[in-house]
């Protein structure tokens, strides 16, 4: 009899399960469930992009790509960052194509962190930063962003958590799950602290193409003196509805990218070849697809924010990504109870805020990556749920 738990890495065993699988197990067993819980675009990858993937297969392009990705793709990534974010990166030395943004995040932690180095992780945020920091030998230090600050990160909040071991700050904006966006002035304020304490920054800008209103996305690396301290992670999943292709990238100082490439080449070898051919087309001719999808998300965003506010669940207006993060405290329920009762009583699935960090308590994440018909029906059911609660 093998005692498996004795045979595995305790650090892995200690990573807690996310605790929301229960909801999805319930949801999966129900007929007629309306879900607003999914974190990927409902659009299919634009046809011309899929076609380039298919064409590469027809042409028999089925071999590995160079470790850091096809040079054609790296050139397009570099041009795209210049065009949209005024960032200048040398495609030969400063761009690494990865298996999704997630791989880039993991590589970044493993490349930068020495044992005991502290990583500042603002929450609520995507679930991967804390476990990946731990697995890289680092120590995650959570910063709780607040609804009254529109879930933006303030320099004071950073200063409070800085110790001599602080090495890296994660900047997860536009934010999943809150939809918060950092404006230029917010980033400039953060940059001062970063410089003062000699920090590095992992700026996860995977939702950069999805910001709403007049404000376009501002990359942290475009703030004065920050490019030399920042690894920008981005990818194709959210912007071009290419989640299943698994393609992302990291750009940054060439010294750091070179070391990340080393890890990438041993762990992964190279990102998927077919996906890279499709991605070249996406970057060359996909700007109008992004425009279209963004305008669709924007209409849904307005509809859903208005819906929640009218129901009395105050909803801070998200400026990016495709989530809203309404406060459910007025119901007197915990996030988890709210979600559980909502799914049992009305067959609507949303994600409890604490899935994205303890400070998400009192909130739920609602995705609007769904058709308008679907959203309207879900809002209707949630309204009915609240009426029953109050009765």
């Amino acid at each position, binding site marked *: 009899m093998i005692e498996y738990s004795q045979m595995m890495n305790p650090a892995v065993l200690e990573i807690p*399960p*996310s605790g*929301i*699988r229960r*909801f*999805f197990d319930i949801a999966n067993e129900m007929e007629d469930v309306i*879900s607003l*819980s*999914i*974190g*990927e675009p*409902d659009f299919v990858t634009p046809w011309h992009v899929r076609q380039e993937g298919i064409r590469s297969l027809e042409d028999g392009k089925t071999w590995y790509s160079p470790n850091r990705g096809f040079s054609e793709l790296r050139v397009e990534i570099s041009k795209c960052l210049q065009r949209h974010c005024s960032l200048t990166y040398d495609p030969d030395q400063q761009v690494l194509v990865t298996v999704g943004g997630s791989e880039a995040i993991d590589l970044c932690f493993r490349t930068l962190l020495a044992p005991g180095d502290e990583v500042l992780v603002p929450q609520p945020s995507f*679930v991967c930063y804390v476990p990946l920091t731990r697995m890289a030998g680092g120590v995650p230090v959570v910063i709780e962003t607040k609804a009254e600050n529109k879930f933006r990160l303030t320099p004071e909040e950073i200063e409070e958590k800085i110790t001599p071991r602080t090495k890296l700050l994660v900047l997860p904006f536009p934010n999943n799950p809150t939809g918060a966006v950092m404006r230029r002035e917010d980033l400039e304020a953060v940059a001062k602290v970063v410089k003062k304490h000699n920090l590095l920054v992992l700026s996860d800008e995977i939702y950069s193409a999805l910001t709403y209103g007049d404000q376009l996305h501002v990359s942290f690396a475009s703030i004065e003196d920050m490019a030399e301290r920042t690894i920008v992670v981005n990818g194709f999943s959210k912007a071009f509805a290419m989640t299943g292709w698994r393609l992302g990238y990291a750009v940054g100082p060439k010294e750091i990218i070179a070391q990340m490439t080393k890890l990438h080449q041993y762990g992964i070898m190279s990102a998927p070849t077919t996906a890279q051919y499709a991605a070249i087309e996406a970057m060359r001719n996909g700007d109008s697809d992004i425009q279209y999808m963004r*305008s669709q998300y924007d*209409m*849904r965003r*307005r*509809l859903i924010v*208005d819906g929640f506010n009218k129901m009395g669940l105050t909803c801070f207006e998200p400026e990016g990504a495709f989530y809203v993060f309404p406060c459910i405290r007025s119901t007197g329920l915990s996030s988890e109870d709210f979600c559980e009762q909502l799914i049992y009583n009305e067959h609507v699935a949303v*994600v409890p805020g604490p*899935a994205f960090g303890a400070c998400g308590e009192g909130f739920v994440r609602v995705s609007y990556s769904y058709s*308008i*018909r679907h959203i*309207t029906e879900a809002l209707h059911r949630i309204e009915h749920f609240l009426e029953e609660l109050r009765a």
Partner: protein
Amino acid sequence: MNTLLELLQDNARLSCEQLAVMLGTTQEEVQKQIDEYEKKGVIRGYHTLINWEKADANRASALIELRVTPKRNSGFDEIADKIMQFEEVESVYLMSGGFDLAVRVNAPTMQDIALFVARRLATLESVLSTATHFILTRYKDGGVVLDPEDERDERRNMICD
């Protein structure tokens, strides 16, 4: 304001209030636009898309190609006008290519359609020939996939382990 038309084309039951929120304008402005579109004939109706196969109703449909002789002064308009009058006719299009008019016809049975073509359409003065194609299954109509099973959301939750 083409977005308004697109939204209505997709779902005519959205309220002015919902439309206004989505478009970032006022309810009054949306109502005004819709009135104008109706007046100008841009919006010609608000239909329900029905999958008759599921409604258990007797109903057959056919696409009929017509070759016709155009009139000297009125071209194809006169014959199209005549064909439009039949209540069995759902749509009439003037086409480029191998034939002139495409007519979509609905009737309770295929036999009814066959009779309609033989007795009413083929006998019209300027009709040269007809070719009747029965519609066997409608997979997608009016931009909508008719069987909801084909539209199942296959996305999954990635944060639940």
